């Protein structure tokens, strides 16, 4: 290893005005893709710095360069004013740069303490390391409000607590600059609030935090400065207090977007989908859906809110014939639906139920197939009479959908894996929506989808509702549920714990329900937002860019 300053030395030598990180002219190519072009970025010490941008804007690549996963093709990195050539993540850590990944890197059956020292053991014997770490952990916990029991097993902890362990891991290794990649994606509103409190404490104690996110609300709530990236380039860096979500969204997309879902009042008709006393077990035989009953009427969107892992996936899968039911019945248009066997999904489809699955890569698409082949997935038997597959007819359908849903690139013979997340989602949506189903079941309609496509997808869902379809929506994005649904059902631990009207529902109360707290109080719970001057500003802040209506404001 070359001569590397320890973080403490770095702090002593750097004056207060030296930026924690400075990037100059960073370029990175992946084959023909120019992932980062001439990036200049200054991150001031002791601030929370947000980095926003759509998928593929180059945020993760940039942070991976900073963390030593990739090497930049050209450009300079200055850490605490000193030029560094970061070779790997160990080197980055030695410079005081720590990263909390979106997907936690924890050993599930180890204790918190064991996870924290893993890879940072300083002797061949575990005991002295653990003893030392225990003392240090206690100090960190009191300094930053990061309370986690050191002897708890990781798999017993909530997602929010696991994230705290990840942060502790970085701090234990002497991280002075903390990079968090989409940290709130898996958290409840209350947990997210707790995280923000921790981040504020870290900042106040002099640490520098870099927050990668696509949620403008979080940027507004927590950051001091925000940098916007688009198509591999740095668009601008702004002071958070002097900008607005609208301005940021515009900078991200490169055109004006309306941060609102435009929809008229619902006019619910007769019950189209009815679920009665449904019990569903997961792959290990543990019941995940426990005696759930509800119904969806024609012309309404019913949203199921809940922290992921509370049975909503199993619920969707069993309604659509992808998972066996332990007990209960699903009625479609008044008729009980037989979903037994491993081809239940075919019968559900024949009865008029379309399904946009939660995880399009795993369930809704065969990524090794060409685009046109995925256009007919689930409907393949209607292409061609007899045993032959009418490829010409399937390709015609594919071309029709590509035009109608603006799927890019517009080549039905391209492998589906080569489409972006948003376009893959459009392939699934086009296939399921264009068959004129009576009931549409949608899971995570905009997961991993860009702002521009989100607008379009939300608008299509509203359009389906207005055509009199019954729509069941599951999303981990509470904002999405609130802005799209006509009725919200809250699920916790496999049971329906409450119902709410999205127009009047208070986010704090919903957050409490999602966390399994059933007493309805009006105290400002941990899910509330920071105070804002005007109601309009508050309104804008509440809207994440995920809730856009289709219309651009034409200039």
């Amino acid at each position, binding site marked *: 290893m070359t001569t590397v300053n320890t973080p403490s030395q770095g702090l002593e030598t750097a004056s207060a005005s030296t930026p924690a990180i400075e990037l100059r002219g960073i370029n990175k190519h992946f084959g023909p*893709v120019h992932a980062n072009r001439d990036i200049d970025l200054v991150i001031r010490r002791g601030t929370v710095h947000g980095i926003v941008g759509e998928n593929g804007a180059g945020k993760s*690549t940039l942070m991976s360069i900073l963390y030593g996963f990739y090497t930049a093709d050209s450009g300079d990195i200055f850490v605490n004013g000193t030029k560094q050539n970061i070779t790997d993540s160990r080197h980055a850590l030695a410079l005081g740069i720590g990263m909390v990944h979106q997907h936690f890197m924890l050993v599930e059956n180890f204790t918190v303490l064991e996870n924290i020292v893993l890879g940072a053991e300083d002797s061949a014997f575990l005991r002295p390391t653990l003893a030392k770490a225990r003392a240090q952990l206690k100090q960190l916990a009191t300094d930053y409000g990061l309370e986690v029991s050191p002897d708890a097993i990781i798999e017993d902890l909530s997602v929010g607590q696991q994230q705290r362990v990840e942060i502790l891991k970085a701090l234990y290794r002497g991280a002075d600059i903390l990079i968090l990649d989409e940290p709130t994606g898996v958290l409840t509103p209350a947990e997210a609030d707790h995280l923000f409190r921790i981040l504020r404490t870290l900042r106040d104690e002099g640490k520098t935090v870099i927050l990668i996110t696509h949620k403008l609300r979080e940027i507004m709530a927590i950051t001091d400065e925000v940098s916007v990236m688009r198509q591999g380039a740095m668009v601008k860096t702004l002071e958070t207090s002097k900008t607005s979500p609208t301005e940021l969204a515009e900078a991200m997309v490169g055109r004006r977007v309306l941060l609102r879902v435009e929809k008229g009042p619902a006019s619910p008709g007769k019950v189209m989908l009815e679920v009665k006393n449904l019990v569903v077990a997961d792959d290990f035989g543990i019941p995940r859906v426990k005696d759930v009953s509800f119904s969806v009427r024609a012309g309404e969107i019913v949203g199921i809110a809940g922290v992921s892992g509370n049975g909503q996936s199993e619920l969707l899968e069993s309604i659509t014939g992808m998972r066996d039911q332990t007990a209960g019945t699903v009625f479609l248009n008044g008729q009980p639906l037989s979903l037994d066997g491993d081809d239940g*999904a*075919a019968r559900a489809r024949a009865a008029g139920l379309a399904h946009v699955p939660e995880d399009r890569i795993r369930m809704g698409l*065969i990524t090794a197939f060409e685009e046109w082949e995925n256009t007919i997935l689930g409907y393949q038997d209607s292409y061609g009479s007899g045993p032959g597959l009418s490829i010409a007819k399937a390709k015609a359908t594919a071309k029709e959908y590509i035009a109608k849903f603006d799927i890019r690139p517009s080549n039905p013979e391209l492998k589906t894996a080569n489409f972006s997340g948003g376009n893959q989602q459009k392939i699934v949506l086009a296939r399921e929506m264009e068959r004129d189903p009576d009931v549409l079941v949608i899971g995570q309609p905009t997961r991993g989808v860009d702002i521009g496509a989100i607008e379009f997808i939300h608008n299509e869902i509203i359009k389906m509702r207005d055509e009199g379809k019954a729509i069941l929506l599951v999303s981990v994005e509470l904002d999405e549920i609130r802005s799209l649904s006509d009725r919200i059902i809250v699920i916790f631990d496999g049971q329906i714990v409450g119902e709410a009207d999205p127009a009047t529902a208070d986010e704090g109360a919903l957050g409490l329900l999602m966390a399994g707290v059933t007493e309805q109080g009006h105290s400002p719970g941990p899910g509330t937002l920071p105070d804002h001057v005007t109601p309009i500003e508050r309104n804008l802040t509440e809207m994440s860019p995920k809730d856009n209506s289709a219309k651009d404001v034409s200039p």
Partner: protein
Amino acid sequence: MSVRTPLPRWVDVALLPALNVILAFLIGGLIVLAVGQNPLQAVGIMIGGAFGYGLGFGYTLYYTTDFIFAGLAVSLAYHAGMFNIGPEGQAYVGGLGVILVALALNGLHWSLMFPLMIVAGALFGAFWAFIPGVLQAKRGSHIVITTILFNFIAVSLMSYIITRILKPEGVQSDESAPIDAISRIPRLGEFIGLFGRSPVNLTFILAILALGFVYWLVWHSKFGYAMRALGHNPTATRYAGISSSRMIMITMALAGALAAMVAVNNVGSVQGRLILNFVNGAGFVGVAVAFMGKAHPIGVALSALLFGALYQGGQELAFSMPGITKEMIVTIQALVILFTGAMGDMLRIPLERLFARGATESGT
């Protein structure tokens, strides 16, 4: 965002397999050199023996026929995500179907007997593959394990049936009674003089038809669509309402039927009787053929031809160069299987680097 750039298609389908074969021959050549023989002379004899004259070429095509069927049996199951190691046993049991129908209707003209032998062989072979299919579909037993075990069961079962039931009184060797000449599938040499008395027969035409059928089935039928869906993503297959258990059972039965055509080639024509262990490893070669041919009918045809030539040329070599023993020929064949099958992707990463560098250089 992937760091690895995929190879151009022609490199993937043509250059890479060619390099693998060349590498196998180079190392084979070193072995020949080590025993004091001339490798160039050996290669010359092999190629000449396999393609140089009508009779030899006929033998090459005869072996090719076996390998095409065995290769297709593996390829078809592979498209549905299953690794069928059982063509050996499926072909062996298929032979029982062929001989039973042939002996029952012995004396019938071959033009009627041929389709009957195909159907009977296919049914028996399909049955032998169907059982592992059911076990996989209904009980989750892994197809690799069950098909391997069914090869062993087939050997024991068929040994018993041949030696204790089918073997006529007073015959010394372990084989069934012979099929009358009129009922046997005619050799191609009876129509095309070039092939002389070589064993290649009308089953070769059947093999060509089977290649076309498998191509149609996999890429142009609804069944093939469902099969490929299952092979790529079982979860999405259930999402699509395709019953994977049904697909597994039918696909395995079809694979078994294809493997059984090896028996039609051997029992129904060349030997005209059911001989103990007649499959003689052709089923296993099918696994290598399928992998080298990337489970595509054209690839299977070409690699079956290569292995056919290796078999025939190898025998010629053992005959003409006594210094090269039979075992050495098996070694060379094994090297080809090793380099094209097991280590088929060994040169992929160096080639990818080479082509990626070429791409960036031309790009800047």
